[in-house]
Every structure is written in structure tokens, then in C-alpha cells.
């Protein structure tokens, strides 16, 4: 049996929490909360997200430092210019440009990390309701088709103002 998705739209936090509790009681533990503003973590009983974002800037910084070092050393060696009998590789400017490279690498990788860990870009928006960015809260469940009716009941019992599912869409398309 194929999977289907269902979205319950709730007017406020309390009803969304009731909907989330109903879903948990009905055995749907893996659902997504969609909101238009950030709520304190765990407000809907969700588990704290696990991610590895902190690793990204470290990797980026190391890459940036390496590129900066190679660039500064490489350009000086490629066009050696002896000034006042000093060594070809001048460390203070190498440190400055490598520092900028380190920081740039850290920023670039952090941005990539945020996008990657946020699971963006999504190929499709999927089941969604524009009222979510107006203060409503969505509870989104993906489950086998035969369980969707049970999920719908849990959402409606939690005072969802609207419930949409991919099954309804498929039926409407005929």
C-alpha cells in the first residue's frame, strides 16, 4: 500500500497541541509541525532536532585556510621577488589573507550546512496551507493510505479547522 499525506490546520497553539497529543495517542509519532513563527522548543511535544551544523564551519574554515595558504604561498613562489634580502614567503600577509580565507570558508560552509540540515531546497512544497504563515499551525502526517482516516479523526478531534490530504486531492482530480 502506498503512503499518503494529511495536513491538519489549527487556529492556535492549544488546539495544535491537542491535535499533536491525539496523533501520538493514535500511534502517529512521526509528524511535522508547520508554523509561521518560531515557538519554544518542545511546545508541541516534538523531540529536539538532531543535526551536525556545528561541523560545517569547522570543515569550511579548514578548507578556507588551506586555500588561503596555498594562494599566498603559490603566488609568491610563482613570481619570486626578493625585498631587502628577506625570505620570499612573507608570513604576516600570508596570515592576513589566510585568516580571511578561513572566515570565508567557515561562512560558506555554514550557509551550505543550514540549507542542507534544514532539508532545503525541497523539490515540492507538498501539502501546505498559506494560513500557516498567518498564525495558524499545521500538523503534517505521512502514513500508509489505510491509516489516513485514523489520522484525520485524530486531527479533527483536536479541533483542526481544516484537514487536507493527498487522497482528497487525488479523488478531486478523478
Amino acid at each position, binding site marked *: 500500500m502506498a503512503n499518503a499525506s494529511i495536513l491538519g490546520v489549527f487556529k492556535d497553539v492549544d488546539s495544535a497541541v491537542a491535535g499533536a497529543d491525539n496523533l501520538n495517542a493514535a500511534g502517529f509519532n512521526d509528524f*511535522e*509541525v*508547520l*508554523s*509561521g*513563527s*518560531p*515557538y*519554544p*522548543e518542545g511546545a*508541541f511535544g*516534538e523531540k*529536539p*532536532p538532531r*543535526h551536525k*551544523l*556545528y561541523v560545517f*564551519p569547522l570543515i569550511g574554515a579548514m578548507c578556507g585556510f588551506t586555500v588561503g595558504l596555498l*594562494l*599566498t604561498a*603559490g*603566488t*609568491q613562489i*610563482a*613570481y619570486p621577488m626578493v*625585498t631587502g634580502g628577506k625570505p620570499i614567503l*612573507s608570513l604576516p*600577509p*600570508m596570515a*592576513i*589573507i589566510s*585568516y*580571511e*580565507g578561513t*572566515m*570565508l570558508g*567557515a*561562512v*560558506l560552509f*555554514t*550557509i551550505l550546512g*543550514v*540549507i542542507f*540540515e*534544514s*532539508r*532545503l*531546497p*525541497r*523539490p*515540492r*512544497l*507538498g501539502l*501546505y496551507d*498559506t494560513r*500557516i*504563515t*498567518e*498564525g495558524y499551525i499545521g500538523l*503534517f502526517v505521512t502514513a500508509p493510505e489505510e491509516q489516513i482516516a485514523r489520522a484525520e479523526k485524530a486531527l479533527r478531534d483536536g479541533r483542526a479547522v481544516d484537514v487536507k490530504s493527498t487522497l482528497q486531492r487525488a479523488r478531486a482530480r478523478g
Partner: protein
Amino acid sequence: MQERIPVTEKEVNEDLLKPVFTTPIWWWVAVAVMATGVAAAAGAAGFMFVNGTGVEGINRPVMWEFLIVNFVFWVGISHAGIMLSAILRLTQAEWRRPATRAAEVMTIFSLGTAALHPMMHVGRAWRIYFEFPYDFGRGIFPNIRSPFVWDPSAIFTYLTSTVLFVYVAMLPDLAIARDRSTGWRHTMYYVLAMNWRGTPRQWHLQTVAGILLSSIILPIFASVHSIVSWDFGMAIAVEGWHSTVFAPYFVIGAVWSGVAGVITLLALMRWLFSAQKYIRPEHFDGLGRLLSVVGIGWFYFTMMEICFSLYSLEPSEIAFRHLQLMEWPFNMLFVLFVTTGFFIPVALFMKKSVRRNVAAMFWISIFVNIGMWLERYMIIIPGLMRKTGLPFSWGSHSPSPIELIIVTGSFFAVALGLLVFSKFFPLIPLSDAKEGEVLRAEIQVGKVRVPAIVRE
């Protein structure tokens, strides 16, 4: 105390997206005026490219003129923009909410404008690729020992970081705009929002990203204006610039002028976009308190620089300071610089009633930046006029109309950039305003109910 006016998420959307989706007549008029100013500056720059840099007021040994003064000024403005945003995010200052985006966007446009100045100054802007380690055919690479290679690398890093920071922080707002737009705007927001849905994971990563990026950008901020100061401090020829305090002096000066720039921008946004509910006197009060500390710190560095140079009694320093402090018109400009740049603003920032008066804060912030422009002028031009202690190497400078047009045009360019940005993207972050509403609370203290904020 919080002075928040309760608003619903729907109201936040309507209020803050109104300037994006509606275009009043004043916007067109302002854009036309700004675009004319930018076109005039571009024409002046074009005239200079055709006829050579001699059309500027350069006069040996004063080979750095208003374009370099203006470059340092705009880099300074840009620096405090993102610094302010980063510090307020890291400290979770509640009054950061309306100020962060404006500060970050001001950084983008002022830094972009600043970067154009050295390109114009060298007179052959099309040779900008000389700065990049690219021209293998030529076989000559940039000399990385020169501060003029450090500058572009620092500015590139800072500009790239700021643009990406603004974009990532704007993802939730792009999703809101996507849900309320039609036609080409909807397509644009749809693509830019990357199908953001607002899951707890996405919100959590937004918070972590704000902290991480702020922590990374703050050291970049400190490095960039330090490097700009080294353009001067490490120039062998000009003896008056060999000051060890230059890097921190420039950095704190950048904070002073940049935060003042943010106040100017916030006041304009409050008036032009009718954002009284979101940009409130408490925000100006907070910025005024911050600035009074920064201003005193900056003045300390100004005085230290002068004290050390006079104490050394070196002929070049004495010649430079004599010109700067005693000779007309620089003595008059010096008095104007310390009066507008320090005494008037800091004295007025001490009064709470002034800090909470938006119009007063607007004009004081303009005063600060008049003073800070003059500060850069007083370092660069008299420094070059008395390049060494030997009188045969002294010179004079008077700005040409070309310089004046380009300098004026730069102000129009930054304003034009901000105006155009405000037509496509909200200048006050909607999701931040909404988070403030979610966390808003009231607590009973004795017989009064006090507005408060819930913090995780």
C-alpha cells in the same frame, strides 16, 4: 521595559509587507531623485576615466583625495551595520528585532558603494582584475605584501558573508511573501524560499545559524576595518600615519558612525513605512545608550592618537598636527569635527528624553556622521599635505567638482539601493517580530502589570 503593542501574525504580515507590495508616489519620486544623483556620479566617473585622474583635485603629494576619504567613511558605515546585528543576536537583546535586517542591508549597500571608490580612484577600473590571482598569461601575480591586496580580500569576504547571512535569515520572510503574492513576484519568492515550510527543525536551525554566523562575522568585522586602517598605518611614505592605535581606532570609529547610520535608517523607516508599532522609542533609547559608550571610547582613541604624536616631537608629526590643529581651514574643521562628532551627540545621548525622541535621534545621528566624515578627511588630507617633515615635500589640496559629484552620488547610491531593496524584501524581519509576539507575556509586580518577555 517592553513597550510592545500587541499585534497578531496577520497584522504583522499586513504591516510589514505593505511597503513591499504597495508603491506610494513618494517612492517613485525618491527613486527618480536618487537615480539622477547616481547617474550624475556615474557621468563624473566616466569623465574621469576618459580624461584621466588629473580632473580630480589631486596635487602631489596629495594623491589620495575625497574618493579615499569617502571609501573609508562607507566602509565604516557598513561595518557597524552587521556588527550591531551580530552583537544584538548573540546577546539576545530583545530590542534587536526591528534593527537587524536594516543594519545588515545597510552593510551590503554601503560596502558595495565603498568598494567602487578605490576602483574609480585608480582611474582604470577595468584593470580591477589585477587584484585577483588570475592573470597567468601575464605571469605577474598580485603582491600579497601590499595592504591593497588585503583590502579586496577582506571586503570580498565581508560582503559575501553579509549577503549570505541576510539571505539565510530572510528565508522565513520569503515564505511569508510567497504565500501572499501572485504573478512574477510569487515565482521569485517561491524560488528564493526554496519551499520553506516552517518545521521546528528549520526554526531551530535558523536560531543556531544566527548565533554561528554572528560569531564568525564579528571577527571578520574587526579584521576588515583594521585592514583598512593598515592602508594608512603601513604606508611607508606618510609619517603621520604611523600610529599603533590605528586599527582599534578605526574599528571603534566604524562602530560609532555605523550605529549612527542605523539610527538614521530606523528613523526614516519609522516615518516612511509607518512602522511606529515595530520601531519604537525604546529601540532608539537602547541604541543611544550603546552609542554613548562607543562615542566616549572613540574619543579616547582620538585623543590618544594626538597625544602620542605630539609627545614624540618628531618633525613630521609636529608639521602634520600644526596643520591639522592650528592652520586655517583645518583648525575650523577640527573644531567642527569634534563638536559634531563627539560633544553634541554624547552630551545629548545622556538625556533619556533625547534618546526617546525619534526626530532628535535622527538629527544627532546625522551630526555624528558629519563628524565622522570629517574625521577621515582630517586624517587623510592633512596627513598627505605634510607627508614628511621636510617643507619642500609639502603640498595642498582643493576638491574638484568631479570629486564632489562622486561623493554626493555615493550617498544617493546607498539610498537608492535601500529603496529598491525595500520594494522586493521587507526591511523589518517578520519572523523576528512574530517571535517577539509569541514570547510576549505580562507579569504582575505589586499593583501593576508589566510587559515582559519569555526567554528560553
